[in-house]
């Protein structure tokens, strides 16, 4: 037998090795995450700087993630002086000159969030720990945004949120190192209510179907409160499981409930299915309380509109940005709105590179990258705390949403919100929504300590440069 006998000697040897292995790291506990000599995590060395694009490449929001990634690649190209410069030319702050960020060439790494907070954090941590990313951006759901934002706060890098609409991201879960350009549930409600009152009257009874998770709750609350403020009554609110694909059972009772408006607080596949079911049930032709029955979808995306097809026609909702801003439009009351040069520049360069217009997810991601780059340039440093200072209460224009404020109290952008409607006669598969009105920023602004946003308790904490 060739078996060796591991006894005292073996034990001693192993414990020596294990002990040495354990002792090595404990001697040097000072350095955390990365080199401490630079004063902050992942300080760029050499002539390049690395950004981390963490988007869903698989899972339910993979399409949105793909569009986000396109926008990021375009933004990097523009920052490095390639292409036609896109919105860099229209941006009110003129520090970006095509030489990268602070003269350093921009490089990037990508990861897959899988729309799961664990996977998203794993991917973000690998970008920070392995690839030396100085900023993480992306994501297409609030769960992921909140999780990654908290991670970036701990690690001491900047997080520029992608598509995240729940109040919590800049509400109760706000963080000093995290920033959101996208609008939120509260803004959707505040923007929609007056237009709904205008279109459908103030004597309405609403029935809510709400996806049973955080985003659904905050959206339902926002729409309910703002429509009740204009005189509507809420008949009933029903929670639907996120994994539900057939909403017939939830829609059947709606007609007999005395309601004359159905609000679908659903996103993505949920919305596509629930809206399709509602239309199949004939809700759009129905009459209730002597009025035409109406359906509302608080948050629209182009991908959802495409999924729901014909069914979106005439249905109101809100959106952060829409590419038709680039062409100008006419509101229902006859006002001509001129084309927005910034949107036009973005749609042009995106369209030339990829062959179709960008989605709102692509827009917010592109804008966030530019805003970060500009903030670093203005601060003159990659130090997260300097960047936070540069972004806080920063007012800018020329990025597609008109004059915008990055509020310092909660790191949320305040800008105009678009109220859109499913187009009756779409000319292409991308031309599914028409802008009804641009709700001015003032109308959707709220106090930083609003009870829906964590109240007085919510705090950003202090910025963390890591290291």
């Amino acid at each position, binding site marked *: 037998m060739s078996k060796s006998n591991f006894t005292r000697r073996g034990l001693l040897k192993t414990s020596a090795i*294990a002990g040495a292995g354990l002792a090595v790291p404990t001697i040097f506990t000072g350095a955390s995450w990365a080199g401490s000599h630079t004063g902050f995590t992942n300080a760029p060395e050499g002539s390049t700087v690395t950004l981390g694009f963490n988007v869903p490449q698989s899972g339910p929001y993979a399409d949105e993630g793909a569009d986000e990634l396109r926008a990021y690649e375009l933004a990097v190209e523009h920052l490095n002086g390639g292409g036609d410069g896109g919105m860099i030319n229209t941006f009110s702050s003129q520090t970006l000159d095509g030489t990268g960020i602070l003269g350093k060439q921009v490089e990037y790494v990508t990861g*897959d969030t899988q729309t799961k907070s664990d996977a998203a954090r794993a*991917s973000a941590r*690998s970008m920070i*720990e392995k690839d030396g990313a100085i900023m993480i951006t992306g994501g297409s759901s609030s769960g992921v945004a909140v999780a990654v934002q908290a991670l970036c706060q701990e690690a001491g890098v900047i997080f520029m949120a992608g598509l995240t609409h729940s109040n919590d991201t800049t509400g109760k879960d706000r963080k000093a190192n995290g920033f959101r350009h996208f609008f939120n549930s509260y803004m959707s409600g505040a923007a929609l209510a007056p237009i709904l009152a205008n279109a459908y009257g103030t004597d309405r009874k609403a029935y809510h179907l709400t996806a049973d998770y955080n*985003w659904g709750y905050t959206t339902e609350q926002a729409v309910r409160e703002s429509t009740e403020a204009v005189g509507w009554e809420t008949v009933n609110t029903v929670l639907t499981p996120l994994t539900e694909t057939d909403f017939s059972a939830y829609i059947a009772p709606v007609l007999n409930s005395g309601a004359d408006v159905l609000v679908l607080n659903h996103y993505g596949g949920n919305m596509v299915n629930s809206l399709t079911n509602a239309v199949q049930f004939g809700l759009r032709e129905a009459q209730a309380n002597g009025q035409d029955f109406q359906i509302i979808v608080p948050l629209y995306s182009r991908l959802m509109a495409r999924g729901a097809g014909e069914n979106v026609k005439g249905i109101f909702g809100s959106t952060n940005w829409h590419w038709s801003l680039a062409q100008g439009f006419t509101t229902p009351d006859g006002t001509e709105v001129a084309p927005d040069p910034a949107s036009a520049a973005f749609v042009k360069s995106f369209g030339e590179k990829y062959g179709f217009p960008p989605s709102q997810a692509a827009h917010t991601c592109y804008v966030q990258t530019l805003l970060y780059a500009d903030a670093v340039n203005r601060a003159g440093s990659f130090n997260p705390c300097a960047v936070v200072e540069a972004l806080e209460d920063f007012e800018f224009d020329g990025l597609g949403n008109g004059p915008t404020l990055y509020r310092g109290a909660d790191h949320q952008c305040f800008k105009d919100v678009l109220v859109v409607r499913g187009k009756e006669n779409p000319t292409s598969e991308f031309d599914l929504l028409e802008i009804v009105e641009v709700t001015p920023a003032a109308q959707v602004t709220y106090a930083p300590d609003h009870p829906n946003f964590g109240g007085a308790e919510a705090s950003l904490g202090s910025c963390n440069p890591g290291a």
Partner: protein
Amino acid sequence: MVDQTTDTLPQRPAASRPAKTGFLGLKGSDATLLIVVAILTMCAPFLLNPFPETSSLAQFNAGYPDLMQRFVIFGIFAIGFNILFGLTGYLSFGHAAFLGVGSYAAIWTMKLVTLNIIPAIILGMIVAGLFAVLVGYVSLRRSGIYFSILTLAFAQMSYALAYSVLTPITGGETGLQIKPTDRPILSNLQDGEIGRANLFGLDMRSSFELDMGGWLFTFNIGYYIAAVVMLISFYVAIRIFRSPFGMMLRAVKSNQQRMSYTGLSPKPYTLAAFVISGMYAGLAGGLMVAMDTQVGPERMFWTASGEVVLMVILGGVGTLIGPVLGAGMIKYMENILSKINDNVLHQWFAFMPDGIEDFLVTVIHPFIGKGWHLTLGIVFMAVVIFLPGGLVELGQRIGRLFGFGKKADDSAAAKTPAE
């Protein structure tokens, strides 16, 4: 706990066990295995970073704290799952629920009681164990596919509850984290300071970086703590595999009826195995929270339960080291392959003529980035078809090829459970 079952082993008379019970009560080949695993885990920061920072192959380096922690944590999860699946043959399709329950218990301990990771991990194990008693008691009334479906149903129920109904406790979709407002009883945090997981003051995220030429090695406190826990779990698993209790579990797998006819009820054994493997999952969940203080409900989703099944099958069902290898393989693909994008490919193949470069990128494109699932699927199919014994069988075949035939056969006999 499992101690009473393992304690019996060394006192067994030498006559019934010709093999020597030397090092820590393990016989030769097991002791070698444990020591090899110990050396590998301790040297992981070196072994997983074989390529210099600046080389284009640095993409394949896995020696950064997050991934190393995941390797050992999912290793623990898979080892525990293997105690149930590998020994008794009961295929649980809901083990992620225990991982999730353990995580939630751990994070609440950290939020409310103390930021020290030990109570959090222990509570995670206990709560997961209790939940396993409940689920096991119900599910183990059936076997085969019915058992799998019952456990799957429990896990999906837990996921749905955590995602929506229990939002006040679980934080719903956005999950739970340690917040600046959290003030655990046994902590002395300053105002506004966010609590960090620690072990008697050692921050889990502290690392020491060793710069050697082009190589950068990261030694992370969290990783070493998780690695030590993994070694302990691995040791306990070996003892369970080699104990009379382990033999009973194999008996359950090979022929339950015969076991009943000999007057033994398989129920207590299967339930014990189920609870032990649930506690392993809870331990992994608690460690996950200790390393990265965040929990989301996706941790309990059925795909997470499926993943651990894949890990064990990929590595080798019923073998000791297989589950750890499988876990490492899947986590490696998930974290490394998914981060390779077309841009990286173009850099690799930049030296080739344009046409060939573009062609190669097009060919490889479906297998990288978001395509890592496809690659994993192909590898999994290949393993199941050509290597039914998993990666361990691959190792044995290679071993035999190079003339270690005798030894390989010996360990194969020791590792393969009785069928």
